[in-house]
């Protein structure tokens, strides 16, 4: 039984949510849009997967109750930016084994105190990093970026080329929070957050949510997008590496082996982009290049993070784990408007996250194909 995405939805991103906004409300908004897009009736949803860091103290079952759903299958995903791929993989399994027929996958967040959230992210962060005034993940990925620059001969202009490339795509995405043109000079002159990272290297925190609906391929209409394969990896190196090898590398290799499709065959690439260094690490691991400086200089019209990615569209907490997926589905359905990629047939979507100590420990990849 193959699985297909038949609906996508979003709670619009905002940098400054009004006081009455709640995480549950954002998830509900994205869910309603996705179910309507799928042309399903609300009671037909019998599976629910949720990822949110700010839904607490509620969980998936609480959300099912709040949403008026009575699912046969539910799942809480707790792997940060890799939650999107994990939820789709789990939902596909649930559908293929008959445990659910129509699964709503939803992710999003509303942070009221992001600094406190970052300082208490897990026990290792609380015990070993928070006392250092470490600057959250910005400080940690500044260190990863420094190592990557040294290992691959990259300079700030290279990262700037990637960031401005994504901003150009964002200019055609009315849902992106940052759409105005960004020049390389703007990038190089921007305020430093943690050397060598500037404000443009760090994803802007927004309130928002993303959702998709999956059904069996046999239940899907002509507008569906087929899930060709998924792969995930967790804690591959016990945080002993440099951070320049991500879990996406092994997941991507497995996906290529099981589907027979290399990343270079995909017309649309949604590579998880919490930081530019993470995008470049994945580009290397997925075989898109073996020369990162050259890759940055020749991005051209490459359909990479065509929503603008989290760096321009915004990072709605764990909602970022679904941003690449909803964008890829939109592209493969030919609904991307001014940013539509011509003849988009295959899309590769990755996820990465859960910084246990120095870098992300969870990753995944999935391949989508237009109907």
């Amino acid at each position, binding site marked *: 039984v193959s699985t297909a995405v038949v609906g996508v939805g979003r709670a619009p991103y905002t940098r400054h949510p009004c006081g009455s906004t709640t995480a549950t409300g954002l998830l509900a908004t994205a869910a309603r849009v996705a179910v309507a897009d799928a042309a399903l009736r609300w009671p037909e949803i019998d599976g629910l997967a949720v990822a949110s860091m700010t839904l607490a103290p509620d969980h998936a079952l609480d959300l099912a109750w709040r949403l008026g759903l009575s699912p046969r299958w539910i799942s809480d995903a707790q792997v940060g930016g890799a939650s999107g791929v994990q939820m789709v993989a789990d939902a596909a399994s649930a559908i293929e084994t008959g445990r659910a027929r129509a699964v709503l996958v939803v992710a999003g967040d509303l942070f009221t105190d992001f600094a406190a959230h970052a300082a208490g992210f897990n026990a290792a962060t609380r015990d*070993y990093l928070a006392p250092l005034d470490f600057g959250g993940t910005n400080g940690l990925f500044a*260190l990863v970026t420094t190592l990557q620059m040294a290992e691959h001969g990259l300079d700030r202009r290279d990262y700037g080329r990637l960031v401005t490339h994504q901003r150009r795509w964002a200019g055609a995405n009315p849902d992106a929070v940052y759409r105005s043109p960004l020049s390389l000079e703007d990038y190089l002159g921007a305020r430093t957050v943690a050397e060598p990272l500037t404000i443009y290297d760090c994803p802007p925190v927004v309130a928002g949510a993303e959702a998709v609906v999956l059904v069996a391929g046999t239940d899907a209409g002509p507008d569906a997008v087929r899930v060709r394969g998924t792969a995930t990896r967790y804690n591959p190196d016990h945080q*002993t590496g440099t951070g320049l090898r991500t879990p996406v590398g092994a997941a991507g290799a497995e996906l290529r082996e099981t589907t027979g499709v290399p990343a270079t065959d995909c017309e649309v690439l949604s590579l998880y982009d919490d930081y530019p260094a993470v995008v470049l690490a994945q580009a290397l691991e997925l075989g898109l290049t073996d020369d990162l400086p050259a890759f940055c200089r020749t991005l051209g019209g490459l359909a990479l993070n065509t929503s603008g990615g989290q760096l321009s569209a915004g990072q709605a907490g764990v909602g970022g784990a679904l941003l690449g997926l909803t964008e890829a589905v939109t592209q493969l359905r030919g609904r991307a408007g001014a940013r539509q990629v011509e003849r988009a047939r295959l899309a590769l979507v990755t996820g990465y996250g859960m910084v246990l100590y120095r870098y992300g420990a969870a990753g995944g990849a999935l391949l989508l194909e237009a109907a």
Partner: protein
Amino acid sequence: MTVMGTRCRDCGETRFPPPTVCECGSQDLRLEPVGPGWVAARTRRAGARWPLLVVVETAAGHRIVASALDDIAAGAAVSVECRSGMICAVPAQTAVVEEESTCRS
């Protein structure tokens, strides 16, 4: 106070932060000092209380995130000390034994 990591008596791997079980499955883990080492990467954060955040790599294979109170260059030799609950990279020649500490190690 010296910051402690672990070495597995069965496979010899070293880890920081200290795990409960080694990846080889052994729980025969011995605490050991994680320094000295060298600065593998550093960053200066805007508005931070301490000038530098660094990754210290030790000969035993530990990689530790630490604050640096002095302007330590990449590649510099350092000791890793726990001072007032904070893991610090200290220039090797000026490393001192610190007073009571609250570092979890």
